[in-house]
Protein backbone atom coordinates (compact mmCIF):
# COMPACT_ATOMS: atom_id res chain seq x y z
CA UNK A 1 0.00 0.00 0.00
CA UNK A 2 1.35 3.46 -0.83
CA UNK A 3 1.10 6.37 1.60
CA UNK A 4 -2.27 7.60 0.36
CA UNK A 5 -3.77 4.13 0.40
CA UNK A 6 -2.61 3.32 3.88
CA UNK A 7 -3.82 6.69 5.15
CA UNK A 8 -7.24 6.08 3.59
CA UNK A 9 -7.34 2.56 5.07
CA UNK A 10 -6.41 3.93 8.48
CA UNK A 11 -9.13 6.58 8.27
CA UNK A 12 -11.68 3.88 7.36
CA UNK A 13 -10.52 1.69 10.25
CA UNK A 14 -10.84 4.54 12.73
CA UNK A 15 -14.20 5.48 11.30
CA UNK A 16 -15.57 1.94 11.71
CA UNK A 17 -14.52 2.02 15.38
CA UNK A 18 -16.23 5.35 16.01
CA UNK A 19 -19.49 3.93 14.59
CA UNK A 20 -19.84 1.43 17.42
CA UNK A 21 -22.56 2.34 19.94
CA UNK A 22 -21.04 2.89 23.36
CA UNK A 23 -23.53 0.39 24.85
CA UNK A 24 -21.84 -2.45 22.94
CA UNK A 25 -18.56 -1.61 24.69
CA UNK A 26 -20.20 -1.06 28.09
CA UNK A 27 -21.89 -4.46 27.92
CA UNK A 28 -18.53 -5.96 27.03
CA UNK A 29 -16.72 -4.33 29.92
CA UNK A 30 -19.35 -5.36 32.45
CA UNK A 31 -19.30 -8.97 31.20
CA UNK A 32 -15.97 -9.40 32.98
CA UNK A 33 -17.78 -9.38 36.33
CA UNK A 34 -19.39 -12.69 35.30
CA UNK A 35 -16.08 -14.48 35.28
CA UNK A 36 -16.41 -17.61 37.35
CA UNK A 37 -13.09 -18.64 38.78
CA UNK A 38 -14.37 -21.04 41.43
CA UNK A 39 -16.58 -23.25 39.29
CA UNK A 40 -15.99 -25.77 36.58
CA UNK A 41 -17.57 -24.96 33.22
CA UNK A 42 -19.98 -27.51 31.75
CA UNK A 43 -20.15 -27.13 27.99
CA UNK A 44 -23.20 -27.78 25.88
CA UNK A 45 -22.58 -31.01 24.01
CA UNK A 46 -22.88 -30.91 20.23
CA UNK A 47 -25.75 -33.39 20.09
CA UNK A 48 -27.98 -31.12 22.15
CA UNK A 49 -31.06 -30.14 20.21
CA UNK A 50 -30.86 -26.45 21.05
CA UNK A 51 -31.67 -24.02 18.29
CA UNK A 52 -33.31 -26.73 16.24
CA UNK A 53 -36.49 -25.55 14.64
CA UNK A 54 -39.08 -27.09 16.90
CA UNK A 55 -42.79 -26.90 17.24
CA UNK A 56 -43.79 -24.74 20.21
CA UNK A 57 -44.88 -27.77 22.26
CA UNK A 58 -41.89 -29.88 21.37
CA UNK A 59 -39.48 -30.95 24.05
CA UNK A 60 -35.93 -29.86 23.51
CA UNK A 61 -33.04 -31.64 25.15
CA UNK A 62 -29.80 -30.06 26.34
CA UNK A 63 -26.78 -31.83 27.75
CA UNK A 64 -24.02 -29.98 29.55
CA UNK A 65 -20.88 -31.97 30.21
CA UNK A 66 -18.39 -31.29 32.98
CA UNK A 67 -15.43 -33.51 33.87
CA UNK A 68 -17.19 -35.82 36.33
CA UNK A 69 -20.87 -35.21 35.72
CA UNK A 70 -23.38 -34.12 33.15
CA UNK A 71 -26.48 -31.99 33.55
CA UNK A 72 -29.29 -33.09 31.28
CA UNK A 73 -32.16 -30.71 30.74
CA UNK A 74 -35.47 -31.00 28.96
CA UNK A 75 -37.13 -27.76 28.02
CA UNK A 76 -40.89 -27.86 28.23
CA UNK A 77 -43.40 -25.05 27.78
CA UNK A 78 -43.22 -23.89 31.37
CA UNK A 79 -40.04 -25.22 33.01
CA UNK A 80 -36.67 -26.87 32.80
CA UNK A 81 -36.78 -30.50 33.91
CA UNK A 82 -33.32 -31.82 34.58
CA UNK A 83 -31.16 -34.57 35.95
CA UNK A 84 -27.64 -34.61 37.28
CA UNK A 85 -25.79 -37.73 36.12
CA UNK A 86 -24.48 -39.60 38.01
CA UNK A 87 -27.13 -38.69 40.59
CA UNK A 88 -26.11 -36.56 43.53
CA UNK A 89 -27.98 -34.31 45.89
CA UNK A 90 -27.42 -30.62 45.73
CA UNK A 91 -28.81 -27.25 44.87
CA UNK A 92 -29.16 -25.79 41.41
CA UNK A 93 -29.70 -22.16 40.47
CA UNK A 94 -31.06 -20.60 37.33
CA UNK A 95 -29.15 -17.41 36.63
CA UNK A 96 -29.69 -14.78 34.01
CA UNK A 97 -27.71 -11.60 33.41
CA UNK A 98 -29.35 -9.94 36.37
CA UNK A 99 -28.49 -12.73 38.86
CA UNK A 100 -30.21 -15.73 40.43
CA UNK A 101 -33.83 -16.00 39.24
CA UNK A 102 -34.78 -19.46 40.57
CA UNK A 103 -33.38 -22.11 42.90
CA UNK A 104 -34.27 -25.81 43.13
CA UNK A 105 -33.14 -28.82 45.15
CA UNK A 106 -31.56 -31.70 43.31
CA UNK A 107 -33.02 -34.90 44.80
CA UNK A 108 -31.51 -38.33 45.52
CA UNK A 109 -31.89 -39.50 41.94
CA UNK A 110 -30.49 -36.24 40.56
CA UNK A 111 -33.80 -34.75 39.43
CA UNK A 112 -34.68 -31.08 39.55
CA UNK A 113 -37.32 -28.74 38.13
CA UNK A 114 -36.62 -25.06 37.54
CA UNK A 115 -39.23 -22.60 36.45
CA UNK A 116 -40.64 -20.52 35.03
CA UNK A 117 -38.92 -20.89 31.70
CA UNK A 118 -36.20 -18.27 31.36
CA UNK A 119 -36.41 -15.65 28.64
CA UNK A 120 -33.16 -14.63 27.03
CA UNK A 121 -29.78 -15.88 28.11
CA UNK A 122 -29.34 -18.03 31.15
CA UNK A 123 -27.03 -20.56 32.76
CA UNK A 124 -27.31 -23.14 35.52
CA UNK A 125 -25.16 -23.11 38.62
CA UNK A 126 -24.89 -26.40 40.51
CA UNK A 127 -23.56 -26.98 44.03
CA UNK A 128 -23.38 -30.70 44.78
CA UNK A 129 -21.09 -31.78 47.59
CA UNK A 130 -17.73 -30.24 46.81
CA UNK A 131 -18.53 -29.91 43.11
CA UNK A 132 -19.38 -26.45 41.80
CA UNK A 133 -20.34 -26.49 38.15
CA UNK A 134 -21.69 -23.74 35.89
CA UNK A 135 -23.08 -24.40 32.45
CA UNK A 136 -22.20 -22.20 29.55
CA UNK A 137 -24.66 -19.44 28.69
CA UNK A 138 -27.45 -20.44 26.41
CA UNK A 139 -30.65 -19.06 24.97
CA UNK A 140 -33.59 -21.32 24.25
Amino acid at each position, binding site marked *: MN*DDEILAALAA*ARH*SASDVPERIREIGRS*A*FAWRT*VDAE*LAALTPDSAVGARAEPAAVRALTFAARDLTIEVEVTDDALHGQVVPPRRGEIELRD*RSGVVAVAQVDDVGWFVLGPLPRG*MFRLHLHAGDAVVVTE*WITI
Partner: protein
Amino acid sequence: MRDDPTVVGLVELARHGDAQAWDDLVARYAPLVWAICRRYGVGGADAEDVAACVWLRLVERLDTIREPAALPGWLATTVRRECLALLRSRRRQVLVGDEFGLDTVDDPAFEDLLLTQERHIALRAAFDNLPEHCRRLLTLLFDDPPAPYAEISSSTGTPVGAIGPTRRRCLDKLRSDPALAAVAGAEQP
Protein backbone atom coordinates in the same frame (compact mmCIF):
# COMPACT_ATOMS: atom_id res chain seq x y z
CA MET B 1 -3.09 -11.23 12.97
CA ARG B 2 -1.47 -14.63 13.35
CA ASP B 3 1.02 -13.92 16.07
CA ASP B 4 -0.05 -10.61 17.45
CA PRO B 5 1.82 -10.58 20.77
CA THR B 6 -0.50 -7.88 22.14
CA VAL B 7 -3.53 -10.14 22.00
CA VAL B 8 -1.65 -13.04 23.56
CA GLY B 9 -0.59 -10.76 26.42
CA LEU B 10 -4.06 -9.27 26.92
CA VAL B 11 -5.71 -12.69 27.05
CA GLU B 12 -3.10 -13.89 29.51
CA LEU B 13 -3.62 -10.86 31.77
CA ALA B 14 -7.42 -11.05 31.58
CA ARG B 15 -7.24 -14.73 32.44
CA HIS B 16 -5.55 -13.73 35.67
CA GLY B 17 -8.24 -11.20 36.49
CA ASP B 18 -6.82 -8.01 34.97
CA ALA B 19 -9.93 -5.95 34.17
CA GLN B 20 -7.97 -3.34 32.20
CA ALA B 21 -6.67 -6.03 29.85
CA TRP B 22 -10.23 -7.25 29.38
CA ASP B 23 -11.42 -3.70 28.61
CA ASP B 24 -8.66 -3.43 26.02
CA LEU B 25 -9.82 -6.65 24.39
CA VAL B 26 -13.38 -5.30 24.31
CA ALA B 27 -12.24 -2.00 22.77
CA ARG B 28 -10.20 -3.88 20.19
CA TYR B 29 -12.99 -6.22 19.07
CA ALA B 30 -16.20 -4.22 19.62
CA PRO B 31 -16.06 -2.85 16.04
CA LEU B 32 -15.87 -6.42 14.71
CA VAL B 33 -18.91 -7.45 16.77
CA TRP B 34 -20.84 -4.38 15.63
CA ALA B 35 -19.89 -4.72 11.96
CA ILE B 36 -21.17 -8.30 11.85
CA CYS B 37 -24.42 -7.35 13.59
CA ARG B 38 -24.91 -4.63 10.97
CA ARG B 39 -24.14 -7.09 8.20
CA TYR B 40 -27.14 -9.12 9.33
CA GLY B 41 -29.34 -6.10 9.90
CA VAL B 42 -29.26 -6.59 13.68
CA GLY B 43 -29.26 -3.30 15.59
CA GLY B 44 -30.51 -1.57 18.73
CA ALA B 45 -31.55 -3.82 21.61
CA ASP B 46 -31.11 -6.94 19.47
CA ALA B 47 -27.47 -6.07 18.84
CA GLU B 48 -27.02 -5.49 22.56
CA ASP B 49 -28.39 -8.97 23.28
CA VAL B 50 -26.09 -10.52 20.70
CA ALA B 51 -23.12 -8.60 22.08
CA ALA B 52 -23.92 -9.59 25.67
CA CYS B 53 -24.08 -13.22 24.68
CA VAL B 54 -20.81 -13.05 22.76
CA TRP B 55 -18.87 -11.20 25.46
CA LEU B 56 -20.14 -13.59 28.15
CA ARG B 57 -19.07 -16.57 26.09
CA LEU B 58 -15.67 -15.01 25.62
CA VAL B 59 -15.34 -14.40 29.37
CA GLU B 60 -16.11 -18.02 30.15
CA ARG B 61 -13.64 -19.20 27.53
CA LEU B 62 -10.73 -17.05 28.63
CA ASP B 63 -9.17 -19.94 30.51
CA THR B 64 -9.35 -22.34 27.63
CA ILE B 65 -8.33 -20.16 24.68
CA ARG B 66 -5.25 -21.89 23.37
CA GLU B 67 -4.54 -19.68 20.40
CA PRO B 68 -5.41 -16.08 21.11
CA ALA B 69 -4.54 -15.30 17.50
CA ALA B 70 -7.64 -17.23 16.46
CA LEU B 71 -9.80 -14.89 18.56
CA PRO B 72 -11.15 -12.66 15.76
CA GLY B 73 -12.28 -15.71 13.79
CA TRP B 74 -13.95 -17.24 16.83
CA LEU B 75 -15.67 -13.96 17.70
CA ALA B 76 -16.88 -13.44 14.15
CA THR B 77 -18.31 -16.94 13.96
CA THR B 78 -20.02 -16.58 17.33
CA VAL B 79 -21.57 -13.20 16.51
CA ARG B 80 -22.76 -14.53 13.18
CA ARG B 81 -24.31 -17.61 14.78
CA GLU B 82 -26.16 -15.50 17.35
CA CYS B 83 -27.42 -13.11 14.68
CA LEU B 84 -28.65 -15.97 12.52
CA ALA B 85 -30.36 -17.62 15.52
CA LEU B 86 -32.12 -14.33 16.21
CA LEU B 87 -33.22 -13.94 12.60
CA ARG B 88 -34.44 -17.53 12.47
CA SER B 89 -36.55 -17.03 15.57
CA ARG B 90 -38.00 -13.92 13.90
CA ARG B 91 -38.72 -15.89 10.79
CA ARG B 92 -40.75 -18.32 12.86
CA GLN B 93 -42.93 -15.41 13.94
CA VAL B 94 -43.11 -13.37 10.75
CA LEU B 95 -42.04 -14.05 7.22
CA VAL B 96 -38.42 -13.08 6.80
CA GLY B 97 -36.70 -13.56 3.48
CA ASP B 98 -33.43 -15.39 3.07
CA GLU B 99 -31.41 -12.39 1.99
CA PHE B 100 -28.76 -13.12 4.60
CA GLY B 101 -28.27 -16.72 3.57
CA LEU B 102 -29.76 -18.13 6.76
CA ASP B 103 -29.81 -21.57 5.26
CA THR B 104 -26.38 -21.52 3.68
CA VAL B 105 -23.07 -22.30 5.28
CA ASP B 106 -20.70 -20.61 2.86
CA ASP B 107 -20.89 -16.87 2.72
CA PRO B 108 -18.08 -15.25 0.74
CA ALA B 109 -19.28 -11.75 1.70
CA PHE B 110 -18.89 -12.72 5.35
CA GLU B 111 -15.32 -13.87 4.72
CA ASP B 112 -14.56 -10.53 3.05
CA LEU B 113 -16.06 -8.67 5.97
CA LEU B 114 -13.93 -10.63 8.41
CA LEU B 115 -10.76 -9.89 6.40
CA THR B 116 -11.61 -6.18 6.29
CA GLN B 117 -12.29 -6.13 10.02
CA GLU B 118 -9.04 -7.94 10.78
CA ARG B 119 -7.17 -5.37 8.73
CA HIS B 120 -8.99 -2.56 10.55
CA ILE B 121 -8.10 -4.06 13.93
CA ALA B 122 -4.44 -4.28 12.91
CA LEU B 123 -4.45 -0.72 11.55
CA ARG B 124 -5.95 0.70 14.74
CA ALA B 125 -3.53 -1.29 16.89
CA ALA B 126 -0.57 -0.09 14.82
CA PHE B 127 -1.87 3.48 15.00
CA ASP B 128 -2.14 3.27 18.79
CA ASN B 129 1.52 2.20 18.90
CA LEU B 130 2.68 5.34 17.07
CA PRO B 131 4.32 8.20 18.93
CA GLU B 132 1.93 10.93 19.95
CA HIS B 133 3.11 13.49 17.36
CA CYS B 134 2.44 10.99 14.58
CA ARG B 135 -1.03 10.20 15.85
CA ARG B 136 -1.87 13.89 16.02
CA LEU B 137 -0.56 14.63 12.55
CA LEU B 138 -2.25 11.63 10.90
CA THR B 139 -5.57 12.41 12.59
CA LEU B 140 -5.50 15.86 10.97
CA LEU B 141 -4.75 14.26 7.61
CA PHE B 142 -7.72 11.85 7.85
CA ASP B 143 -10.14 14.61 6.94
CA ASP B 144 -11.42 14.37 3.42
CA PRO B 145 -10.24 16.66 1.95
CA PRO B 146 -7.32 16.81 4.40
CA ALA B 147 -6.79 19.98 6.41
CA PRO B 148 -4.50 22.48 4.62
CA TYR B 149 -0.83 22.18 5.63
CA ALA B 150 -0.87 25.75 6.97
CA GLU B 151 -3.63 24.78 9.39
CA ILE B 152 -1.87 21.55 10.39
CA SER B 153 1.32 23.52 10.89
CA SER B 154 -0.29 25.99 13.25
CA SER B 155 -2.07 23.33 15.30
CA THR B 156 0.90 20.94 15.62
CA GLY B 157 3.77 23.40 15.60
CA THR B 158 5.38 21.49 12.72
CA PRO B 159 6.84 23.74 9.99
CA VAL B 160 4.91 23.40 6.72
CA GLY B 161 7.98 22.05 4.94
CA ALA B 162 8.38 19.27 7.52
CA ILE B 163 4.81 17.97 7.31
CA GLY B 164 5.34 15.89 4.15
CA PRO B 165 8.50 14.15 5.43
CA THR B 166 6.97 13.64 8.89
CA ARG B 167 3.87 12.13 7.35
CA ARG B 168 6.06 9.73 5.34
CA ARG B 169 8.11 8.74 8.40
CA CYS B 170 4.98 8.17 10.49
CA LEU B 171 3.37 6.02 7.79
CA ASP B 172 6.60 4.02 7.39
CA LYS B 173 6.56 3.41 11.12
CA LEU B 174 2.92 2.37 10.92
CA ARG B 175 3.65 -0.01 8.05
CA SER B 176 6.47 -1.68 9.94
CA ASP B 177 4.27 -2.56 12.91
CA PRO B 178 4.35 -6.38 13.16
CA ALA B 179 0.57 -6.74 13.53
CA LEU B 180 -0.04 -4.72 10.39
CA ALA B 181 2.77 -6.30 8.38
CA ALA B 182 1.09 -9.69 8.89
CA VAL B 183 -2.31 -8.67 7.43
CA ALA B 184 -1.09 -6.16 4.84
CA GLY B 185 1.33 -8.70 3.40
CA ALA B 186 -1.43 -11.28 3.10
CA GLU B 187 -3.48 -9.31 0.62
CA GLN B 188 -1.48 -7.01 -1.57
CA PRO B 189 -3.71 -5.23 -4.06
